[in-house]
């Protein structure tokens, strides 16, 4: 029997009083979730922001909270991890045994529950869902002027269960950190993460995400970012796995001269569906936002990019750029691209573009005329398209790891 919004609400009722943190906030979130239901589900209303992505398969699946069995250590060993601190969550709960702790600045949500200030459970059904049931997560804090180096945040999930991690990252003035988030698992689980990120004045966060979930799993991640004066939020998301995934980012450039990069690549095959949705709001002058989203779509897969840039009246000299490129490797693959600009200032530079295509016939002929067989020529051009996407990752070591993940993806396609 499917769990559905009703089942999740019942679970919440049963857990009341045993979940950490502000119970009034959870109750409000539960009320909002009751009203909205799961986007695309049979209960609740139609939501424009979920036009291209329906969570009906989530609404129709059955989720048990019971602890599943899976090969955690084998999965962990297969991940392209860096030789750096790693904070590991297994089935949504912090796992100290598998973690390599950073020097300082880490707390568990389970111990110090903090729902933050940026999220909107009343507007986002999946945030309401998370707020209602979140039980653990990571809170990272990098003090002023401190370089936090690299920290990895790993999620390994399994079974037919639902998990709702709640993370927060605070970079104080002038601090810096490279956060590498990797999620993988085994099973038809739902991972529904909410993260809140604060980048204070002059601070810099590099946020790399690799989503390589089980191909029967659901992955929803909603991130809220606030970037203060001259701060930088530089992110790159690589979506390879999951039956259905949605990566949603709300980035507010609230301090003058701040910068946000929301780059992504989605490589899909079979009947995978992957949605990258962003809302960048420029609310201060002289801010820059850059988004390049590349999709490589094989089989009957579907890639979605929705990107909204909002420019407030005070946000003069805004520089916003958005590009969505898709390479369709099969006649049955589909891409949906929805750029939106909402501009109230009069001195801004905002542009967006989208390209959709098959492999270039001239490039194919050039390669083949040099003796490279058709199949090898195709894979050369697809890799080239992806290599360009990964160019957005400045750190060569991290880029190598992501390239390795893409190579693994290729190996799986051939198998």
């Amino acid at each position: 029997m499917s769990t559905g919004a009703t089942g999740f609400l019942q679970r919440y009722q049963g857990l009341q009083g045993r979940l950490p943190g502000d119970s009034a906030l959870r109750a409000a979130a539960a009320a909002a979730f009751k009203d909205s239901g799961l986007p695309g589900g049979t209960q609740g209303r139609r939501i424009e922001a979920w036009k291209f992505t329906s969570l009906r398969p989530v609404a129709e699946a059955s989720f048990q909270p019971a602890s599943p069995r899976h090969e955690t250590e084998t999965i962990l060993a297969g991940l392209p991890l860096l030789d750096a601190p790693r904070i590991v969550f297994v089935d949504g709960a912090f796992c100290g045994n598998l973690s390599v702790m950073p020097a300082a600045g880490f707390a568990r949500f389970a111990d110090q529950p903090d729902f933050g200030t940026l999220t909107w459970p009343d507007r986002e059904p999946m945030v309401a869902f998370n707020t209602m049931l979140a039980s653990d997560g990571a809170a990272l804090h990098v003090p002023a002027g401190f370089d936090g180096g690299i920290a990895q945040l790993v999620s390994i999930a399994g079974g037919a269960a639902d998990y709702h991690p709640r993370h927060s990252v605070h970079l104080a003035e002038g601090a810096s950190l490279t956060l590498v988030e990797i999620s993988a698992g085994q099973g038809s689980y739902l991972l529904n993460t909410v993260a809140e990120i604060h980048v204070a004045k002059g601070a810099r966060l590099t946020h790399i995400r690799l989503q390589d979930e089980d191909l029967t799993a659901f992955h929803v991640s909603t991130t809220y970012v606030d970037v203060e004066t001259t701060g930088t939020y530089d992110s790159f998301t690589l979506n390879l796995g999951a039956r259905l995934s949605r990566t949603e980012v709300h980035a507010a450039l609230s301090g003058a001269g701040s910068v946000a990069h929301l780059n992504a690549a989605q490589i899909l095959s079979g009947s995978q569906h992957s949605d990258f949705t962003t809302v960048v709001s420029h609310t201060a002058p002289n801010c820059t936002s850059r988004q390049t989203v590349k999709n490589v779509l094989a089989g009957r897969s579907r890639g979605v990019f929705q990107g909204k840039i909002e420019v407030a009246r005070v946000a003069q000299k805004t520089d916003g750029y958005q590009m969505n490129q898709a390479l369709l490797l099969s006649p049955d693959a589909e891409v949906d691209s929805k750029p939106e600009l909402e501009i109230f200032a009069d001195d801004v530079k905002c542009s967006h573009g989208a390209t959709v295509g098959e492999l270039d016939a001239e490039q194919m002929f050039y390669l083949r005329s040099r003796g490279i067989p058709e199949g090898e020529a195709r894979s050369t051009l697809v890799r080239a398209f992806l290599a360009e996407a990964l160019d957005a990752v400045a750190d060569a070591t991290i880029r190598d790891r992501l390239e390795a993940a893409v190579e693994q993806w290729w190996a799986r396609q051939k198998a």
Partner: protein
Amino acid sequence: MLEILELAASIGDKPILKGIDLTVPAGEVHAIMGPNGSGKSTLGYVQSGRDDYTVTGGTATFNGIDLLDMEPEQRAAAGVFLAFQAPIELPGVNNANFLRTALNAIRRAHGEPELDAVQFLKLARTATKQLAMPDDMLKRNVNVGFSGGEKKRNEVLQMAILRPKLAILDETDSGLDIDALKIVADGVNALRAPDFSALVITHHQRLLDHLVPNRVHVLAHGRIVRSGGPELARELEKSGYAGVIAEAA
């Protein structure tokens, strides 16, 4: 030896080649000259297997093998190389990897062992040195951000590494300064051997000063209207195509 008989080809419904007869014996270099739109580039593309041209008649054989029946990569393995008039940019494809992939594909087709990265780089560096190309050209993406002259030189580099038996050079001289022209000509001359043939498509006598052809053919309206020795190129340079074409008509 390349033997083309009664070759006819079209793009869509438009006939471009209307019965070409041409024989290039092994060891010889032949030049193809002719006004714009006469079908020179088509002749090159048809032999290397570009699929937007339809062969409507005739044959093209190379050392007795029917070229027209093969895929582009099989023709390359058989020794055919087309130096493109406008070389294609391949963003995200490293030039050295591209060349090694191509060379190894051809070596595989011949049952020869593949070269590893070290062996290949040694070979490639020798070739770049001979062509006076900077080493960093190997590290860059194929033709991306290359000047016109660099692109043409990169074609000659590919040719030097793949060592074809039949090279078709489609206006490889256009856009080159005198020094680069000499380098390109030297690159082809270095390959000259009793079992190597070349078809040099050009507008200008200048290249043919450095790369002296055995025969010169004038192509007009999809047919070869006149053939002669190297002196024909000089005659064309002086008096243009009009006289030759009118004479043939």
